[in-house]
Structure formats: C-alpha cells, structure tokens
C-alpha cells in the first residue's frame, strides 16, 4: 500500500506585500518605543523587577518563636497536605515539656514544589508561610533541597520571621 502526500497549492506567489506589512509594523513599534519608553509592556528584567502583590506565593519561610527557636511542631499536616510530596519532616522530642515535639529536620525539595500554598493553609500554628522571594537561582541542583537553616534563618529573613501563634499567649488565654 502506498501513500500519496497531498500538498496544497500556494495560493499566491505574492509574498512581498506580507513581508513589507510585517516589517512596517515592527518599525512603527520601534519608533514609538524609542519616543515613549514608559509605555513599553516589557521590563528590562535584571535592572527592573516586577512588584508582585503581598499575597504572592514565593519561597517558603519557617517562622520562629520569640526566643528564635523554630515554631514548627512537626505535626506533619503540611507534608500530608502537600500534593507534590516535597516536604520531609523528622520529628523529635524536645527537652522542654512546653514544646514537646519539634522537627529535628525539615526539608523542602523546592524543585518538586508547585507553590500551591497548601502547606501554609494546613499549618495550625502559622509555622510555615509562603514568602515574597521568587528569584532563587543556584549553581547546583543539590542546593534546592532547603533545610531548616535555609527555611528559617536565611540571611534575607534577618534572624527569622515571628509566628503570630504564640504558645505562651495561648496558655495565658486559657486555650
């Protein structure tokens, strides 16, 4: 059995008018961009950066208590809720009985993360938030598995973000 490929006939050999129309459009835009640079829809990326809204879901932040220790109680709700399965927590017993349980390791594989923010929503103690950072480059693929140091105490956070849910305040309030 043989196949025959049907080719549609070129409707016209008159391609020159089309090319000239396109070039004219480009030239017109170039002139108008040179005259009115503010109206350009694109950004000069490394120099100019887009300002995202305050609810933007960027890189994760683990919040801290007043004393700077990690707020997370290792309840694993974020890991359970995570659709990308990128959170890995190992819980341990804290010597302080008012803390009891804390994560001895907390790892997020950011390359797997889909930035859906379900972890933030699942967290009962405001221990994990989606931060504003979105420019995260690294030289090596292994640098994308964020650990507690990176998530809670990276230099950009300046000593850590305070959690709004405080155990002691809760305790005094009788909750």
């Amino acid at each position, binding site marked *: 059995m043989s196949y025959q490929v049907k080719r549609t006939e070129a409707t016209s050999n008159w391609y020159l008018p089309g090319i000239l129309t396109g070039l004219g459009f480009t030239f017109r835009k170039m002139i108008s961009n040179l005259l009115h640079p503010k109206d350009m829809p694109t950004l000069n990326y490394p120099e100019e950066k887009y300002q995202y809204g305050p609810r933007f879901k960027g890189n994760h932040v683990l919040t801290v208590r007043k004393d700077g220790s990690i707020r997370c109680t290792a*309840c694993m709700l974020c890991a*359970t809720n995570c659709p990308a399965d990128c959170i890995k927590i190992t819980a341990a017993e804290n010597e302080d009985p008012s803390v009891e349980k804390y994560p001895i390791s907390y790892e997020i594989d950011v390359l797997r993360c889909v930035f859906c923010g379900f972890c933030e929503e699942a967290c009962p*103690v405001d221990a994990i938030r989606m931060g504003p950072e979105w420019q995260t480059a690294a030289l090596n693929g292994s640098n994308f598995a964020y650990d507690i140091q990176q998530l809670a105490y990276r230099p950009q956070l300046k000593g850590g973000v305070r959690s709004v849910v405080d155990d002691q305040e809760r305790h005094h309030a009788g909750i």
Partner: protein
Amino acid sequence: MPKCTINGKEVEVPQGASIIEAFKAMGEDICHYCWHPGLSVAGVCRLCMVQIEGIPKLQIACNTEVKDGMVITNQSEQVKDTVKWGLDFHLINHPLDCPICDQAGECGLQDQYMQYGKYDPEMAEKKVKKHKVVDLGPTIVLDSERCILCSRCVRFTEEVSQTNELGIFNRGDRSEIGTVDGKPLDNNYSLNTVDICPVGALTSKDFRFRQRVWYLKDSDSICPGCSTGCNVKVYFNEEGLWRVKPRYNAEVNGHWMCDVGRDTYKYVNKRARLLKVRAGQAEYWEDKEVFSAVMEAGRDLRESAEKNPNSVAVVMTGQYTNEEFKEFFDFAAGELKLTRFYHWMNDPAHAEDFDGLLYRGDKNPNTNGLKAEAKTHGGFKSFEDLQANLGGLETILVLGPENQSQFDDIKEKVEMFGKAKKVIWLTACGSEEINALRAPSVQIPMKTYIEKAGSFTNYKGLVQEFKRGTTIVEDALTLSEVVTLFRGHELDYKNRPQPLGGTKKNHFTEIRGQL
C-alpha cells in the same frame, strides 16, 4: 434469650447482655469512651445514652441490661442533643494538642466529635492546666491535660494485669491519673493501657513522635514472641515496621498482648537485618549475592548428604511456619535421607513457664508445629548426641531463630557448631554472636514473620494462619525458597514480593548534585 428492638430492628441477645453489647453485636453506631469490652463497666463518660420506650429519662447503654421487649433507640433528637452536650463537657479542659498528639488520626475524641460534636463551644472559663509529659514508667508517658478520666487504664491495671499501679487522684476538675507515690508503671502488660486510652493521654515511649498514624498501613499477623501466638495487627510503611498492637481473639489473647511481644518489631527492620548472604568465618566475612550463594551452599549440602547422610546435622528452632517445616522435612528427610535432627529451644527448663495471663516461657511461636512435623520423620536427637559426633560432621545446617534476643545460649551454641567442618546458618538478623562462628560458614538472610504467609501452631495446638504484611528485605528468603534453591531449582525471581514503594521520587533528584 431476651428479644429487643434497636433502632427499629429486632435482635435477640444472650441473657445478661448490656444494651451497648447489643448495639456492637448489631454493628450499630454508638458513641462511648469508658466502656471497653474487655473491662468492667464504669459508666463515667455518660455518652452511650439511649432512649428506652417507657422510661422517661435517658439511660446509659453500657450499664443497662437488655430486657425482653425493650424498644431502644439512639437516633432520637433527645439522645443526639445529650451526646452533643456530653462531648462538649468532655472537651472543656481538653487542650488543643492535636498537632503534637500521637493519638491524632486514631483518636476516639476526634472521631466522635466529627460525628456528634457541637462545633461551637460555649465555655467562657479558662481551661484547667494540669501536668504534661509525666514519666509514668519505662514504657509510658502521661499527659494529664488530655485525659478525659474514662478510667479504662485504671480498670485495666486492677482487673487484667492485677498490678494496681494506676489510680485517679484529687477531685473534680483537678482529678488526674497517676501512680501511688510516683512508683513506676512497670509490668509486662503496661502498653495495653496505651491501646485502650481513647485519647492521647497515655503514649508509648517507643512509638512517641516516630510516625503519624495515618502514614501507616496495617495487616493482621500472629505474634512470634512466644508460644501463646497472640493475634496482632502490625503497622508499617515503606520505612519498615513501626509497632505491633493486639487484635481481638477470644480463644487466644482476648484484647491484650504483652510488652515483650510488642518489641518484636525491632528486629524486623532493615537496620537489624541481614541483607545479603554472608560467607566466611570469624573475623573475615564477605557479602555475596543471595540466590547464587544459596544454590552453591545447597549443592555442597547435597553432595555431602549423598556421600553420607549421617554427616549432615540439622539444628531446628520453632520459629518457622508449618508449611515451611513440611517442605523442609520433605527435602531433608525425604530426598536427602538425613537422620540427625536436633531441636534447639531457648530455655527448655522453663519452657512450660506461664505468667498467668499470656506470656509463656517457650519463646518460639511454632514449637508444637515443629514437633508434630518432626515426629513423622523420626523425631529429634538430643544435643549430647550432637556433642559426641561433632568431629565427624561435614555440615551443620542451622534453622536459626529470627528472634535472637530470646536465645540466651546463642554464644555456647555458636561455639559448639563452630567445631563442625562447615556451618550453614539461616537467620533473619546478622549478629555479633553468629559472626563469631569458627568454622567456614554461610549465613543466609531469612524473612521475618510479617514478610511471609503461613501458619503457627500455638501451645495448645491451635493452628493460626496469617498473611504477608509487607516486605522489608527484598532478597531475604523464606525457608521454602531456601529449600527450592537447595534442590537446585530457580526461583520465580520476577514475581517475588516487593517492598512498598517509597515516596514518589523525581528521577532527577538523585543526580541533581552533579548537574
């Protein structure tokens, strides 16, 4: 046999049965905390309220006997309202600990609040704060705040273990569970109190914070810890086995099991296990691929048995299933015509010991099965016979125990077997004791009880079947598979049971560091 009507359905119950037992027998839903089928009735939680026709007030189902002609319901608005408010009272002082509470996920309070809860508490007062993280003993941690004072644990120590360690101290909203003078709760059945605790007040130190229960899968099994053969549920995930809990069987263990049996999960996990065939002798061992090495050992065994069947001795422990023993005897006694079989028990002098509840001195789950199978093949010889003939033996094949910690004489035995020319030792766990073997030896990795299906015959001759739960060491073999390889046959490698898959992993994750 009184007849009654429960939620519109007629049911006949045994004389003296309580209403809650009738509900349970029918499979009807009823909210309850303090009632436990294995314990006496306390009637303190007031949640199992039912409406009985002809009685103006609601009654508790756990402490009301079924009378002939009773018409009972727990679906009326009045009952639902009472249960809702009852639950709210229980929660007045209950802390919001669910994120750090080990019980979360299998908590009676969570489950029943979802079903019957009020959802908008009206309590304006502060919660009463009690002691947290109280060390009750070597196995248990108590959190008094979470306790709802159902008194199940107290009744357990009074009625079942009869050790009377626990009690309720203080009065009113300051009541707390505790031990007299802070004495430790230390008995062989202490962890049952953790199982029956309907909230997370009592938690096991061994399992505390290790895993969230919703990550665990479970499977029914039989405890291999002693010859009682308690019915158990094993909880595992892809990382291994995490805990063992009792499963109800009226004939064997009732609702309970001992703490020693719960420890059997420890030797099952990969860290303790032998992963490959280990060949060599004391101070020099090398790992070999399992299947080829076992076949090679089998070839040597068959050769020496063909020359002289009396030059091969088989030392057996009652730690394998009936099916495996049958297949092994068919091979060893039937095909190889071996005659020297020896029975190795952990402590023969105390084999008949019994603590009055569950725990027996014979730490092998299948001693009876082994004895019955051996009887049809000429029975066992005594160890004196082995001692006397050690010099003339070509090979000793040891069907070693998987639960080695219960075999105190393992060092002596290793020394004794080491005097033979060659030892083949089948074992689930690698250990320093076995590594001290003086003779050229092969250690073959074996499967443990949760990795194989089969049956154990317990101390009173009851044959109990169990299923495979999971696979932890892929290359480990069952005794039947060892026999197949010893015969020189290939296994069905492709269809061997596989371990649970780990987290769905990005294929690039492993090579990412080099990118």
